[in-house]
């Protein structure tokens, strides 16, 4: 599948168009704030259109995962090549982009959430230029992670994300923003270091024979890493079910678990969410958390299928703990944003539970849950943002009776809330259903215990609805304006998706089905 | 014994000159080191120079150096006069600056 514009592949476009936007934003004089905003909107809008184009041309039957032939929109160039060092052979880092069923949903999610994020950042007034420049850089990083198939490239994009995120939280955040930003940065950075170590170990352990020249080539190419034939004899990660492979898996897992975030690596999330401005919370919950689960699926699972099988039970247990623990913690919160942050922990636990099952149903559920959670949580953070914009408060007990004051807003919020609660007919249900079904067939008791999570979820969500939207409204908030047109625009696509995917998820599931079941296949062959 | 000394004294040779020159040098050195007055110090320097001159001339007379020693002596005298001029100028400046020509009080280089 080739799709090019001006001779440049579409994936390069979609990744780097925000960088172009960033440069334009930097060239616009400070005073013309509206021009800056519109540029950012236009750039993310273009990105969204490109994502649509990708979706339209995506072939659902192609497998991907470890077969380079069945990736789509592939761009593959040599980037850094060091010729034949005497004792290690040729060194190769490639610029290798491509998508398959795992990443296509994430690409669409990223484009959509970025677009919505720009709309909801419209009211940012402090250092507009810097904000949008960093924002666009962030978008590039996220998009890059989802489309790169070279570990080195993956790592670079992974790190690119950290920097703008740090500043976006640290400059435009709430009162404890420095603390939150530092915590976020250090936490994720520790993970990155672990990943880098594994990356280097893999690099030395993997070498393929160049079919043309017959040289031994060390590479960062993920697809080569997935092929066990390429393991160098006697290297650190050679063999199967070896201690070093387990250690490498754990190191990667910790990195991804921090991003997901999985219990007990989750504590950066509430702080970061509470301090971050609305749009950044949306990005953080909508896209950033998915990086972790995506990394597991893209890197840990296919490269270390043996260790994945070995640790699947542990993953499921951590997922279960996250589900229940997150839900309980959410119930204890009095801050609306913190509540949603913990609910994210709970919902991402479902993702982990689903993918840990290593069954097609569970993984489809997990990947779909990633997408759905992205959309639902984005809605929820936007919901909080609306209230915060108007009242500068977000305590759950500060409000009440918003249903009377802002009926349209309440409608939107309730749909989001109920989707998070897993109400059938909305998208959250479908993915939870599949995740639990898959988990049940793999780990019966864990799934049964996890199901109690949906009861607790119902309890805290309804309690929240009751405290914020029902009851009598406080005197000072009697005249809050209902949603503005701009806010409606930012909600509309998300709400539409929530309902559409809830009623007819078939096509979306088909989008990833082939790749996911191929991945399951791969793990089952490699792991047993 | 006495005769010998008188004999030696009455028959001046190189050693006599050297002896005088050494005495002169010692006196000059003494003056340079001990006198407080810069002018005196300068005079001491002149004495040292003259003792050297004496040596040059004596060596040139008693050895086969012929006139070369005289030549040098003449040079020294000329340079000494120039040096005296420069030195006096310095002394004048020192006086202008410190209002004294006592070397003990001019100890700006003290560590």
């Amino acid at each position, binding site marked *: 599948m080739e799709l090019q514009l001006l001779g440049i592949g579409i994936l390069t476009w979609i990744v780097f168009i925000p960088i172009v936007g960033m440069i334009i934003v930097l060239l616009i004089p400070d005073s013309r704030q509206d021009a800056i905003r519109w540029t950012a909107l236009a750039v993310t809008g273009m990105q969204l259109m490109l994502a649509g184009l990708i979706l339209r041309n995506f072939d659902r039957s192609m497998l991907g995962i470890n077969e380079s032939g069945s990736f789509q929109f592939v761009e593959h160039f040599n980037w850094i090549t060091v010729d034949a060092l005497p004792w290690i052979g040729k060194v190769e880092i490639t610029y290798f982009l491509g998508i398959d069923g795992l990443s296509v949903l994430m690409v669409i999610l990223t484009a959509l959430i970025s677009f919505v994020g720009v709309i909801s950042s419209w009211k940012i007034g402090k250092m507009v230029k810097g904000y949008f420049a960093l924002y666009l850089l962030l978008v590039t990083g996220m998009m890059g992670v989802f489309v790169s198939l070279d570990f080195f490239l993956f790592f670079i994009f992974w790190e690119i994300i950290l920097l703008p995120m740090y500043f976006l939280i640290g400059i435009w955040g709430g009162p404890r923003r420095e603390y939150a930003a530092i915590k976020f940065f250090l936490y994720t950075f520790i993970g990155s270091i672990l990943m880098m170590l594994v990356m280097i170990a893999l690099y030395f352990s993997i070498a393929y024979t160049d079919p043309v020249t017959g040289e031994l080539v060390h590479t960062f190419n993920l697809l080569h890493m997935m092929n066990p034939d390429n393991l160098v004899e006697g290297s650190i990660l050679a063999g199967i079910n070896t201690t070093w492979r387990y250690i490498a898996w754990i190191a990667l897992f910790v990195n991804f678990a921090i991003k997901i975030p999985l219990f007990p690596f989750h504590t950066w999330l509430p702080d970061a969410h509470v301090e971050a401005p609305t749009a950044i919370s949306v990005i953080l919950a909508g896209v950033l958390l998915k990086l972790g689960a995506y990394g597991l699926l893209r890197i840990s699972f296919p490269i270390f299928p043996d260790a994945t099988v070995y640790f699947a039970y542990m993953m499921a247990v951590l997922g279960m703990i996250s589900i229940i623990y997150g839900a309980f913690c959410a*119930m204890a919160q009095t801050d609306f944003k913190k509540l949603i942050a913990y609910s994210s922990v709970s919902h991402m636990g479902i993702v982990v539970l689903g993918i840990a099952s290593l069954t*097609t149903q569970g993984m489809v559920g997990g990947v779909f849950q990633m997408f759905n959670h992205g959309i639902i949580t984005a809605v929820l953070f936007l919901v909080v943002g609306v209230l915060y914009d108007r009242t500068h408060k977000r305590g759950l007990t500060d409000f009440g*009776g918003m249903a009377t004051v802002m009926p349209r807003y309440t409608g939107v919020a309730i749909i989001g809330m109920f989707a998070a609660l897993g109400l059938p007919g909305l998208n959250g249900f479908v993915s939870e259903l599949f995740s639990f079904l898959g988990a049940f067939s793999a780990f019966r008791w864990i799934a049964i215990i996890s199901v109690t999570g949906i009861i607790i979820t119902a309890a805290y969500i*309804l309690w929240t609805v*009751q405290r914020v939207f*029902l009851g009598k409204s406080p005197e000072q908030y009697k005249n809050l304006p209902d949603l503005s047109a701009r806010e409606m625009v930012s909600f509309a696509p998300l709400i539409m998706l929530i309902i559409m995917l809830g009623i007819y998820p078939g096509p979306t599931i088909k989008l990833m089905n082939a790749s996911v079941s191929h991945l399951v296949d791969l793990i089952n062959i490699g792991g047993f | 014994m006495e005769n010998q000394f008188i004999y030696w004294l009455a028959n001046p040779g190189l050693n006599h000159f050297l002896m005088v020159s050494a005495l002169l040098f010692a006196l000059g050195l003494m003056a340079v080191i001990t006198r407080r007055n810069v002018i005196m110090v300068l005079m001491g320097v002149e004495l040292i120079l003259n003792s050297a001159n004496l040596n040059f001339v004596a060596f040139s007379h008693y050895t086969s150096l012929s006139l070369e020693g005289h030549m040098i002596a003449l040079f020294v005298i000329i340079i000494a006069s120039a040096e005296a001029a420069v030195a006096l100028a310095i002394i004048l400046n020192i006086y202008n600056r410190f209002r004294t020509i006592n070397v003990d009080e001019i100890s700006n280089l003290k560590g």
Partner: protein
Amino acid sequence: MELQLYIQLALITLALPFAGFLILIFTGKRLPRNGDWLATGLISLAFLLSLFILIAKLVWHHNETITSSLNWITLNDLMGPSSIEFGITVDNLSAILLVVVTMISMLVHFFSIGYMKGDIRYSRYFACLGLFSFSMLGIVLTNNLLLMYIFWELVGISSYLLIGHWYEKKTATNAASKAFVVNRVGDAGMFVGIMILFTSFSTFTFETIFDAISNGELPFESTGWLTAAGILIFCGAIGKSAQFPLHVWLPDAMEGPTPVSALIHAATMVAAGVYLVARVFPLLTADALLVIAYIGAVTSVIAATIAATQMDIKKVLAYSTISQLGFMIMALGVGAYAAGFMHLVTHAAFKAGLFLAAGSIIFAMHKALHKTNDHHTDAQDIRNMGGLKRKMPVTYWTFLIFTLAISGIPFTSGFLSKDEILAGTLAFGIMSGHYLLPVAAFLVAGLTAFYMFRALILTFHGEHANATRLEGVEESPKVMIIPLIILASLSVYIFYSFNPFGAASGWIFQAIERPLSIVPVAMQPISNLLFHNVVSMVHSIAMGLSILFAFSGIIFALLVYKWKKIDADRLANSMGMLYKGAFHKWYFDKVYYKVFVDGILGFVKGLHKFDDKVIDGFVNSTAGVAIHLSNISKWIDEHIVNELVTLTAWIAGYAGEQLGRLQTGKVQTYLAFMVFGFIVLFILFI
């Protein structure tokens, strides 16, 4: 008639109320009269359609099951594609319930036009009724567990929205949340049950699951898991049908508007649990059925005793509903399948009627109290009523008919179904030796007659509790009265069976037959044939006892409340703990509140602290450790490394200082040194 036509008609029936919901929720406020005519018209149309379906079905295709499904999701597995189908099925069971649901819903719509007049969220109310009707019809029509679960949750959410209709009231929102969360507990169990079945059979469709089990496939090769699956699915019914121990939400749900209580919390939604058990009946093992029977029995006894002590008319009816639902569940548990289902149908009519009549009373009370500017008196408390018979004759007479029906007096519909259930439990008790079940059943039958007549007498007979206050009470408008009359006429035996003493010859018994059990033989309940034989043997005894208990209940109620031969308070006192326990609803609410609400809130607070202090504390303390480490290294750097550097500098400085003393600044000293040095060198080298 073409079979597919049934499916199409059923789909249209399903779609009509949903269309009403969509239209009203978006444009309701702009429509004339806020669109109540639209909702009512659509549901009436749905009623006519479903009536047509029922009649056509019974007349032309009596024994057929018509199913149609379409693919919702296809999942390509390693084993090949597996698809999740959504389908609907029209058989006698669903066709009958279709009519019941649409009819009650239609009557409630009409009633609401009067009752909800002038409400601030009038159109939203009708929209939610539409959503409810849609989801309830979905439950009735679906042919698979997943779709059942989906609609199951949707009725839950519409119930939530309607209970919380007056959401300014804290009690209403509390009740709504409580209803949903308590239901979720049951639903979680049901979900696990569904997971067990799906994991074993890769399908959600009832038929396919039943086929697989009858072919000897068992979940995880164990009959234990099959029993567990049955009981877990029944958990859904425990939640929705408010069975012990999850019955606590239903009385609170009475915070919603009264017509809603009639529709959702008396006639239809709460009966969904019964319907669910009826649907999955074939896969229930004998053990599972026994559990079901006992849960039903316990529920009905508990609820009946509570109902006999309550003062709020809606609470009395709510507990009565729970008790009757327990009856139906017990009937299904003992195997009296058709009887239980028939009781669902007859109960729907007379209980909806009771609630609407109660609604009519409350409506009238409210108006009367409003006129006297009295906002403190509870319009629902039967102690504040009395003597309403003269003021509201139609309401009274209909209420009386409903009361007779629920008490099981001959010639009413309630008698027919209740009598069959009692006979069924008696037969089951005799055959299996579980005598507790028939004892409970007869006890409840007597109690039912007692508490219903108690409510009737206190409300309508005697004198006004407060003459001036109740002066203004008047009969409700026609739009509310007519549904009452229709329901009252439907509480007469003639609609169900031409023989007032034998339900078995009625059309419901003809249409509904207990499905064959498909579980392994050793696990099967008592076979249908044997059961029938014993039932017909004990039938006349059961009938006699049933009439006896009903009448004694009534007479006791008359003795206490009408003729005042026995003082109610003295009676209560003499019952001691028994009365107190029942009056306080056997402390379920209090204990649950303490354990679950307070307990969990306390727990989550602790957990949050744990998260904050231990887990986050760990993270922060690693930062602390890092800071300490850096402090140590800072100390080392300052005091050791840096000191070494300083020391060398100091040495140099010191040496310089000492040597500097040589530097007198005096030229002559220097010269002296020079000479001295020269001499030393001279001595040394020459």
